[in-house]
């Protein structure tokens, strides 16, 4: 069952179609990657899902019901890309305050804060001020304030920026843990290797519109170019006739990268190579990386979206 379903969402600003007719569906327990170049409309989309902006048109169904920002705010945890906390406020008080604003009682909040602070080894921070923390430590604190109230939907915008590898892993493990316990995570980033590692399902938006939607496996299959890497036990002679089975993309000692021609099968290629008397050590399909797909999809988009007049 889908936790969040967005239908034909539109938000136009004075000079831009920030989100232009986007529909998507996020299943419960999924880690969902929301990708797109700068200015594609990701933040506007997220702001509508979190109730910060009202959509011009379209509908948001959250947890089976029409989305109601005042009621559902407590079920969502949002860590915006532009993050910040009250610098002069004590960390414990601040976390308590933000948790209470999300609807926790003071007692619940204190228990939860203690649990999380213990887990992240932050217990000694309670009476420190935010301005005393390093950027990475602030980031950890920000993550805690986002997930403290056990939200059903967690939206993380670039959660790892500014974190060292140790803390990145710590947060990453928490994200998996939260998803395993039933939370749904929307993960927005430009770092494609993180998306491949973490997400089940991705959506790519560009110029306010959805251009890609599917599981990572599916997307890769959709974008594969029938490239194969074959390694041989001996160097390949230069004059390998490529017949009408494949074309050679790269040849290097005993390594060959080929592109299979349409309507040909792997077996035909293998049979041909064996018939040529070559010893095959490995035969692998090269799937495109998300990075390649991303670049291919948004290629030709101007680096900054032009301002257009919609009137």
């Amino acid at each position, binding site marked *: 069952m889908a936790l969040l379903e967005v239908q034909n969402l539109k938000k136009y600003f004075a000079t831009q179609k920030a989100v232009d007719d986007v529909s998507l569906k996020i299943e419960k327990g999924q880690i969902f990657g929301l990708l797109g170049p700068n200015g594609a409309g990701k933040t506007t989309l997220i702001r509508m899902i979190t109730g910060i902006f009202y959509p011009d048109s379209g509908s948001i169904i959250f947890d089976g019901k029409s989305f109601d920002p005042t009621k559902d*705010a407590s079920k969502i945890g949002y*860590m*915006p890309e532009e993050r910040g906390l*009250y610098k002069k406020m004590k960390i414990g008080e601040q976390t308590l305050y*933000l948790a*209470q*604003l999300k609807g926790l009682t003071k007692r619940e909040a204190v228990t939860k804060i203690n649990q999380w602070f213990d887990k992240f080894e932050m217990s000694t921070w309670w009476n420190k001020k935010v301005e005393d923390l390093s950027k990475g430590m602030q980031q950890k604190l920000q993550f805690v304030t986002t997930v403290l109230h056990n939200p059903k939907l967690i939206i993380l915008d670039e959660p790892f920026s500014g974190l060292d590898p140790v803390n990145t892993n710590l947060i990453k493990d928490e994200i998996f843990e939260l998803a395993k316990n039933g939370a749904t995570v929307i993960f927005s980033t430009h770092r494609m290797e993180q998306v491949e590692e973490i997400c089940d399902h991705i959506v790519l938006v560009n110029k306010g519109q959805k251009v890609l939607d599917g599981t990572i496996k599916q997307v890769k299959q959709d974008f594969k170019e029938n490239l194969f890497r074959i390694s041989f036990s001996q160097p390949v002679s230069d004059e390998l006739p490529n017949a009408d089975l494949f074309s050679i993309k790269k040849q290097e000692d005993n390594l060959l990268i080929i592109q299979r021609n349409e309507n040909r099968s792997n077996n035909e290629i293998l049979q041909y190579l064996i018939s040529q008397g070559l010893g095959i050590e490995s035969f692998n399909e090269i799937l495109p990386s998300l990075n390649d797909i991303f670049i291919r999809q948004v290629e030709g988009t101007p680096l900054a979206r032009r301002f257009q007049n919609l009137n």
Partner: protein
Amino acid sequence: MKKILLIIQREYLVRVRKKSFIITTLLFPLLYVGLIFGTAYMSEKGTTRLKIAVVDSSGKFTQTRIDKENAMDNSSTLVLLNENVDSLNKHFEDKGFDGYVVIPSNTVIENRPDQIVIKSNRTLGLVSGVQTKLNNIWNEIKYEELGIDMEKRQLLNDSKLSVQAENMQDKGANADIAAVIGYVSGFLIYFILIIYGSQIMMGVMEEKTGRIAEIMVSSVKPFQMMMGKIIGIALVALTQFFLWIAFIFIIYNATKSGSVAGNSNVSQLVGGVQTVFTSVNVPLVVGMFAFYFLGGFFFYASLYAAIGSAVNEDMREAQSLSFPVTMIVIFAIFILMVAMKDPTGPLAVWGSIIPFTSPIVMMARIPYGVPGTVPYWQLGLSIVLLIATFILTAWFAGKIYRTGILMYGKKPTWKEMIKWALRK
């Protein structure tokens, strides 16, 4: 509703626990009292005591009479000299005199000299002290020459008519006391608007530049955020205000029981405040003060909040946008000055009705009496207009706030902000 209470609580506690709050609360009354007594002290000590030589050709300005005057008032000294005017003209400064004055020989009642000139080599400024002394001596001479004895003199001196204005509609109002109350309450509202208006603006800017606005807005409505901040800071202002009042009473009681000679000025002042409270319609004044304090506060606070949400971290941007608003508050103080002298004049009447100035100006008029000085229709219109404007401004500011708080980049103009407000 629970969320707005949480916001109010945070905004209040964060500010009240600050060292700067405690310091300003303690120092402001001290500074204010210090300023009053300081200026009084300076004006007394700072002026030069004129030493004037008196050359009496009439023989009537005797040493005894001059000594008597010098003993009564030491702000200037007269010294009787029996010297040639020409030589004195050259040497009076060498002898330590600021100037000299010559009393003509034919000075009699029937032939009063038109003007007595103090000759000096520099500008002496005010010589009213010397004039009073010479006049007192002249009076003595006149009484003596006319044969008026002490008893008759007493009668003459006591027979002055005292003139005071009385409003037939409102006999209780005493113009002097009303002016003081109007001045004090108008200025209190003015200070609070200026100090706390900018506090609200800075608070909103902190949320925006600290990038916490977006996190907050995902939990609460921007309007709740703005109102929570305004109400929280209003409570801080009220706390400070009540502490100040408490201090006045503590100082009053301390001076009353201590009765140290040096403190008599203070207790006089405070005692004066107490008489004020007994001779005016206290419930009305207090009630109206509370209304105009809160009304004015909420009205201006929402304007400052809107400005704070629109600008970025640059203080200069904030100042240039808030300058017109601050100017209006300062302008209101000038109208207050006029209204204190002429509480029924057109400037006072309209200033106390138009909501931009009414919180300050109306407080200068109300102590003179309702409905004597301020007819019911004016008070009613002023109250209704202030409430209506406050609701309108809060709505307007809320719209600007909602857009501005998440908007980074260049400083918007007033025109753009109005556009934000008018957008659906």
